[in-house]
C-alpha cells in the first residue's frame, strides 16, 4: 500500500473532518475493516463449532448425509471463488495504479464470478429441494434408511433377514418410519449445511451489491471513488467471503468419517 501511495498517478483523496492526515485515514479504514472481519469470523465460527460438535457426536449419519452433496459442483464453485479473489486483488492493484479501465474490467469479472457462484449454488439447492433435503416437515431421505443402508454394507443376507417375517417389520403399520431418529440426524446435517451455505451465499449477494456499486461509481467517475480505498476495502471483504468458502467446502463436502 505504501509503495503504491508514492505512485504519481494516485488520485487525490478526501480527508474526513475527524482525521488529520490521509495516511491516518487510510490506515483507520483498513483496521476498521479487519475488525469487522473479526466479528464475521466469530459469526461463522459459532456455526463451525456446531458442525464440529455434531459431526463428532453423529459421525455415521453425517458421513452418509454428506455423500448426497455434489462434490463436483462444490469444486467448481471453489475454483470460481478463487478466480474471483484473484481478479478482486487485480482490481485493487489496478485502482491503486490509477488504471481505470483495468479496474472496471477486473471488477466486472469478479462480479460475474460471484453471479456464476450463485448460479451453481442455485443448481445445487434446487436439486436438494427436489429431493426434499431441505430440513423441515417435508424432509425426506430417499435412500432407504434401513439399518443396512446406514452401514453401507448391504448384503443379500441381511436384506433377506429384513424381509423375512422373523424380523417382523410387518408387525408395524405402514406409517412406521424406521430409523426416524437416524433420519433426523441427516436433517441435522442438512440444517447446518443450509444455514452455513445460505449465510455464505447471503454474503456473496452483499458482495455483489458492494462491487456492483463500486463499478457504477467508477464508471460514472464519482468523486467518492477517486481514492483507491473503497476498492481495497471491498477487496478485503471479498477475500473473506472466499476464505469462508475455502473452509466450508472441505468441512461440508469432503470430509467423511474420521
Amino acid at each position, binding site marked *: 500500500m505504501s509503495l503504491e501511495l508514492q505512485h504519481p498517478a494516485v488520485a487525490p483523496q478526501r480527508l474526513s473532518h475527524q482525521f488529520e492526515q490521509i495516511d491516518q485515514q487510510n*490506515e483507520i479504514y483498513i483496521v*476498521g475493516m479487519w475488525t469487522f472481519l473479526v466479528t464475521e469470523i*466469530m459469526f461463522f465460527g*459459532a456455526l463451525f463449532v456446531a458442525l464440529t*460438535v455434531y459431526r463428532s457426536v453423529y459421525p455415521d449419519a453425517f458421513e452418509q448425509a454428506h455423500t448426497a452433496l455434489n462434490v463436483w459442483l462444490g469444486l467448481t464453485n471453489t475454483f470460481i471463488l478463487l478466480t474471483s479473489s484473484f481478479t478482486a486483488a487485480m482490481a485493487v492493484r489496478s485502482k491503486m495504479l490509477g488504471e481505470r479501465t483495468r479496474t472496471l474490467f477486473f471488477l466486472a469479472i469478479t462480479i460475474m464470478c460471484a453471479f456464476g457462484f450463485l448460479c451453481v449454488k442455485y443448481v445445487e439447492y434446487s436439486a436438494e429441494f427436489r429431493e426434499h433435503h431441505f*430440513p*423441515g*416437515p417435508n424432509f425426506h431421505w430417499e435412500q432407504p434408511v434401513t439399518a443396512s443402508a446406514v452401514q453401507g454394507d448391504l448384503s443379500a443376507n441381511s436384506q433377506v433377514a429384513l424381509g423375512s417375517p422373523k424380523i417382523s417389520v410387518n408387525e408395524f403399520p405402514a406409517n412406521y418410519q424406521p430409523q426416524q431418529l437416524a433420519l433426523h440426524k441427516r*436433517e441435522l446435517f442438512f440444517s447446518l449445511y443450509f444455514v452455513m451455505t445460505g449465510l455464505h451465499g447471503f454474503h456473496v449477494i452483499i458482495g455483489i451489491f458492494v462491487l456492483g456499486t463500486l463499478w457504477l461509481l467508477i464508471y460514472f467517475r464519482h468523486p467518492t471513488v477517486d481514492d483507491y480505498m473503497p476498492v481495497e476495502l471491498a477487496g478485503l471483504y471479498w477475500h473473506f467471503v472466499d476464505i469462508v468458502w475455502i473452509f466450508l467446502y472441505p468441512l461440508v463436502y469432503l470430509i467423511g468419517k474420521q
Partner: protein
Amino acid sequence: MSSIPLNPGALGSDGRARARENYLNIKHTVSSWLLTADHKRIAVLYMISISVMFLFGGLAAAGIRIALVRPHDTFFSSETYNKLFSAHGIIMVFFFLVPSIPATLGNFLLPIMIGARDLAFPRLNLLSWYLFMFGAVLVMGAIMFGGIDTGWTFYEPYSSVYANTNVVAVIVGVFIAGFSSIATGINFLVTVHKMRAPGLTWFRLPLFVWAMYATSIIIVLGTPVVAITLLMVVLERVFGVCVFNPACGGDPILFEHLFWFYSHPAVYIMILPSMGIISEVIACFARKRIFGYEFVAFSSMAIALLGFLVWGHHMFVTGESMYSGMVFSLITFLIAVPSAIKVFNWSATLYKGNVWLTAPLVFAIGFILLFTIGGLTGLYLASLAVDVHLNMTYFVVAHFHYVMVGGAIFGYMAGLHFWWPKITGRMYPEGWAMLSAFILFIGFNLTFFPQFILGFDGMPRRYHFYPPEFQMWNILSTAGSSVLAVGMLIPAFYFLWSLKYGDIAPANPWGAKGLEWTIPSPPPSFNFETVPIVTEEAYAYEAIYAAELAGDYSHVEASIPYNQEYVEKPQSNISNEEHQ
C-alpha cells in the same frame, strides 16, 4: 493549573458565554439531530432512547414485585407474569445495560478523552443508533402486542418448539440491536488504536478509555456468536430446521454453551465501563493519581479476556462433564482476582487524598460497596457444590442485580452526574443528587439483600407462585423496590429541571484533569480547535493537590454552592506547611 499544557486556545474562559457556539446550539432542526454524525449528539440520542427503555424495563420490574407480594398471586395470570419477567430481562439487558455506558458516556467522552474530533466512523455510529432504535421498536412492539415468555435466555427447546409467543420478532429485534453494539465496538477499537492525540501513549490513557477498549473487545468477539445462535433459533421456529431441537437429535446444551459464550462476557460489557467511570471519579475527587494505574488498566484487560473462558459456570447442573465444571469453576475463581485488585486500588486511592465529597463520589463509593458484595457472592456461585444448591434460585437474581444494578447503574449514575455539566452545560442540584444517592443505596439493599436469603432458602427464580414461608422476605423486597423507584425518579426530575434552571456550568467545574475538561461546556462541534498535544499522564493531580493543601481552590470553577466555602475560607499556610 499553570502546568496545563493542553491547547491553551481551547481553554474554557468563554465557557460561561451562552452565545458561544456548541454542539447543542449549532443547529436546531430535527433533521440536524436525526442525521447528525457528531458523536456527542448521537450520545444524547442514545441517552434519551435508553432512558425510555429503562422506564419500560422498570415498569415490568414493578409488575414482578407487585405479583410477588403474595405467595399465590391473583393480580396477574401466570402467562402475564412470565411475560413480565421476560420483558424486564430482555429490555434491561439488551436495550439498557449493554448500550448504557458505552453508547452514551462512552460515545460522548471517548473521542474527547483521546483528543480526537470524532470517532473513526461517525456515520457508522449514527447507523448504530438507528439499528438500536429499529431493534428497540420491534421488541417493544412485540412485547406490547402479545409479549414473549421465554425469559431473556431463550433456552432451547422451549423457545423454538414450545413457546407460543412473539419469539421471532423479539429475537430479530435483539439480533439487530446486537449489530448496533458491534458497530459501536468496532468504532471504539479503531478510534482508541488509531486516533489518540500526539503524546497520548497507552499508559497515559484515562482508565475510562481502557475500560471502553476492553469492553469493545468483548463486544466484537462475543456479540456475533450470540447473534448467529439466536438466528438459528429463529430458523428453527420459522423453517423447521434442526439445530438445537432434541427431537431431531440436536443438543439444547449446545445452545446454552453458545448463548453463554456471549452472555457471560456481556456481564463484563455492563460492568467494565462502570469500573472505568469509578476510576475517573475517585481519582478526581481524591485529587490523586489512581493507586496502581497499570494494575487497574491491566485488570480490565484480564477481565475481558478471562471473561471468555468462564461461560461454563452457568451450566454446572446441566449435565456437562464434571471435569469441565471444575475447569470453569477454577477460571471463575481466578477472574475474581482482577476485580479484587480494582476494589483495593480504588480504596487505596482515597488514602491521604484531599477528598471532596460530591454526589458523583458518593455514587462511586456506593458502587464499590455494592460491587464488592456482588462480586463476592459471585464466588458462591462459582463454588461447584454451593452452586448446585444456589443455581437458578433467587440467590443468582440477587447476585447479578448487585453487579448490574448496584454496579452498572450506580456507575452510570456516578458518570452521569460527573459529566452532566460537560454534556449539558448545566450543573445538577447537588443536594438532591446526594439525597437520591442515599435513597438509591438504601432502596437497593432493601430490595435485593432479602433475595440472597430467599435464594439460600431455596426459592427458585422465575416463580410466580411460591411457598408461603417465603412471603415476608418477598414483602420486604417489594417494599425496598418502591424506595428504589423513588430513588430513580428523583434524578429523572432534577436532571430535567437542571436543563433549564441549573447553574451554568464552567469548563472545568471539578478542577479535574483530562482533555474533556480543557474544552468548554458544552463542547463545540469538533471538540478541539487544534489537536492537543499531551505531555503528562492521566491523573496528574500533584499540582492541584499541592495547591489545595495550600488553600488555593481557584482551579475549581464550580459555581455556588460547590466551591463557596473553600474559596472563601482558604486554609492557613501554617497548617499546610505542617502537613506537606
